[in-house]
């Protein structure tokens, strides 16, 4: 019914089967090692080099502007002109359209 021979693109069925197999093996290892693990009853605050952890949970969440902050900061020479280019003025939209039209026409004429 289902052709699971590796043919044209790739076979997700085999991928999933292998994935299930690997997780079964991993679970087996887990079951073998689990009795040896010693549990303690102590559950304390996380220790972060002497600072008290924040009590308000909302401060723990990183906002959208801060994710990948360093990455965008490092690329600012490339990103800032790009953002500046998106002016939001309708004349500019038409401007890019007309310029692309002219360039494509010249390109097609030369070729």
């Amino acid at each position: 019914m289902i052709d699971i021979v590796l043919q044209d693109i790739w076979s997700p069925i085999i991928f999933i089967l292998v994935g299930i197999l690997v997780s079964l093996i991993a679970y087996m290892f887990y079951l073998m090692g689990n009795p040896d693990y010693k549990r303690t009853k102590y559950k304390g605050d996380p220790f972060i080099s002497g600072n008290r952890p924040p009590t308000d949970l909302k401060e723990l969440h990183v906002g959208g502007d801060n994710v990948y902050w360093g990455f965008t900061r490092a690329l600012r020479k490339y990103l800032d002109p790009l953002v500046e280019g998106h002016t939001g003025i309708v004349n500019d939209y038409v401007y890019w359209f007309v310029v692309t039209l002219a360039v494509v026409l010249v390109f097609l004429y030369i070729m």
Partner: protein
Amino acid sequence: MKKIIALIALIVISAFMLGGVAEMRGDDGSFGNPVETEMDDFFLEDSQDHNQVNNVVTAVLFDYRGLDTLGEATVLFSAVSGVLTVLRKYKLSKKENLTKLTKSSKGGKK
């Protein structure tokens, strides 16, 4: 700078268009002298045989290119629906501040 590039682009496009209209319909034909008229001659002859209509433009509109006319009526219908949608009564809602775009850039030059 932008203005200069835009003007150059306009000039390029107009040059292409002028070249196009100059070359239209080969060298012998120009304005008022179409060469390829097979389709329209067929319409002119067939409109009376097939549709029993004297006005050939109406025959083309409603029979040979009837789907275009349906589309055109649909355009008008959608424009009316759009106008009714945009100009309908509305309440000022809290949605005005849905994003930070609203408060960070309140128009004007950057």
